[in-house]
């Protein structure tokens, strides 16, 4: 299997501001299977990410631009986005 960055992570609104990152390509560590696993891992990536993902229950997630729940499997995902509850309209 090829290795190297294999998934795009995107951050919006205050998640983007706190992490200081809008978009990045990463390789997720082995053993990460669900959205909740990704959220936990993100919280370990330094103080900015720790701050942004301190309360993972607040963060909403989309896989390949569709809303998903924390227990959703990430297998096959090309793009995962993290953001606060939406406030349009």
């Amino acid at each position, binding site marked *: 299997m090829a290795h190297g960055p294999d998934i795009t992570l995107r951050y919006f*609104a205050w998640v983007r501001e706190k992490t200081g990152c809008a978009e990045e390509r990463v390789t997720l560590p082995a053993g990460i299977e669900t959205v909740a696993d990704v959220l936990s891992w993100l919280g370990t990536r330094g103080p900015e990410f720790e701050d942004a993902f301190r309360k993972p229950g607040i963060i909403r997630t*989309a896989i390949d*631009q569709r809303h998903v729940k924390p227990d959703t499997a990430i297998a096959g995902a090309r793009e995962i*986005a993290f*953001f606060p509850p*939406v*406030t*349009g309209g």
Partner: protein
Amino acid sequence: MTVRVQSDDFDVASEIEVLTKGRTDIGAVVTFTGLVRGSAGGRELVTMTLEHYPGMTEAELEAVEADAHRRWPLQAILIVHRVGELRPGANIVLVVTASPHRHAAFQAAEFLMDYLKTRAPFWKKETFADGAAAWVDARESDDEALQRWQSQE
């Protein structure tokens, strides 16, 4: 395409004209326009900036539009949502529904707004005259508004 995300303003009258031009089968057009209020939490608002998730926003709005078409006999739906920096009094969002009779048009417009507010990936950031800036918190009342439609599925 009846879903648009844009930084430019929109004109309600001309949007209705485009939608109804040359047609004699439409009996009711309902429009909803959302505007930027000049204050929030007792503070004077200077700007409201709307961020969104390009691609997903359009997909969500189109899904909501398709859902409305399944629920009511609608002849047309238009959703226009602005992004970028807006000032108090500015237009934010426009929903237009057209049907042979008013009931479907009224209900669908409300449904579209309730769904849009809880599913479409837009986020509002407010800046105030005192220099403070804050992201708008989602409201539980918006989720409750959505639930009444889900109980009708």
